[in-house]
């Protein structure tokens, strides 16, 4: 234990960069306050590595979420120099000479420091029936359901989402209206709607075309620009608008019995 601080002092004597981290503890702070921490600037260090250095060495009270460090778990999303980013995939060197401003994801209630409340988001995800609906036509458990490459390609892109919420943080409509279903949830609905094994499109229509659904989107496109996984939620929403409009016209024109 005693040798370590000396080693770290030598490290920081080399190149370093300032992390300006938003600190907030409800009950203690009236509002978030930025706090500066000097961390080593190493070529291979991500912003998350910088935060881990702060927590391990400088200030153990810092709260933030992370897990995989490889862009898969989706838990390390934060606002870095004003933009929603995965901190494990964002390198400190991008911001040299600094400072690197690290804030919680915008658009969400802050629980503490860099940790935001993800419950509303999880509720939205759950509301689009995000599983294969078979309407009683369940195949036997050991049956295979083969898909052609084309059938797989129809939804594969939308299945790459890691629920990092960067798209919500980037979305100006969500910033105005927290009831908006939002990019990832609609992309997730399309992931199942476009799956040849699924039969749940009609049930999802009632959610996607309702208040807070696709009609709130004005195709700004920031969600797709922010997405670290190439999901293109804006494309999913546009695509579904056409589907929903056609479905609405169909329901409007067809007599009730023929639906």
């Amino acid at each position, binding site marked *: 234990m005693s040798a370590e601080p000396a080693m770290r002092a030598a490290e920081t004597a080399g190149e370093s960069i300032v992390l300006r981290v938003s600190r907030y503890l409800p009950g203690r702070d009236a509002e978030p306050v930025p706090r500066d921490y000097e961390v080593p600037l190493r070529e291979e260090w991500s912003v998350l590595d910088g935060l881990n250095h702060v927590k391990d060495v400088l200030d153990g009270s810092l709260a933030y979420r992370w897990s995989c460090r490889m862009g898969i778990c989706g838990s390390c999303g934060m606002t870095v120099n004003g933009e929603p980013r995965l901190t494990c995939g964002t390198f400190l060197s991008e911001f040299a000479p600094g400072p690197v401003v690290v804030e919680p994801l915008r658009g969400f209630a802050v629980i503490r420091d860099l940790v935001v409340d993800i419950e509303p988001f999880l509720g939205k995800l759950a509301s689009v029936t995000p599983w294969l609906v078979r309407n009683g036509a369940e195949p036997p458990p050991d049956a295979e359901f083969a898909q052609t490459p084309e059938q797989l390609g129809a939804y594969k892109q939308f299945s790459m989402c890691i629920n990092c919420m960067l798209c919500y943080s980037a979305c100006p409509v969500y910033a105005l209206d927290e*009831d908006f279903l939002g990019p990832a949830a609609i992309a997730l609905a399309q992931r199942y709607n476009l799956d040849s094994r699924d039969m749940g499109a009609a049930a999802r229509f009632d959610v996607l075309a309702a208040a807070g659904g696709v009609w709130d989107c004005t195709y700004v496109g920031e969600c797709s620009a922010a997405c670290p996984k190439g999901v293109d939620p804006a494309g999913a929403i546009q695509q579904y608008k056409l589907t929903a409009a056609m479905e609405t016209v169909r329901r409007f024109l067809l007599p009730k019995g023929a639906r």
Partner: protein
Amino acid sequence: MAREGRAGPRRRPVEPFLWLLFSGGGMAAAVLVPVLVLLFGVVFPLAGGPPYDHLRAVAAHPLTRVALLGLAVLAFFHWAHRFRFAVEHGLGLGRLDRLIAPLCYGAALAGSAAAAHVLFLTL
């Protein structure tokens, strides 16, 4: 089907139809307007176009009138939809949707009526 608590001010069963007009207008304008601008703004002035009487006869043809009216109506509704959300989201006036939306689409209706008047009564 009605989702309690989610019935925000923008809940409108006509929303899909407004969006269809919006996207139809964007499509029609993107396809037709550049052609018209190229013809009447560049090619005819520079290279000399068909004589006035001929162009007038083309414009007065019922099919041309209907096509131009269609373009004008769709383009007006495209504008109305875009402008409505520019005001509501851009200026943060979403609460006033009940006022803003009728004004925008009303303006598009008025523009459509004016276009019809020009195309069918004065041309």
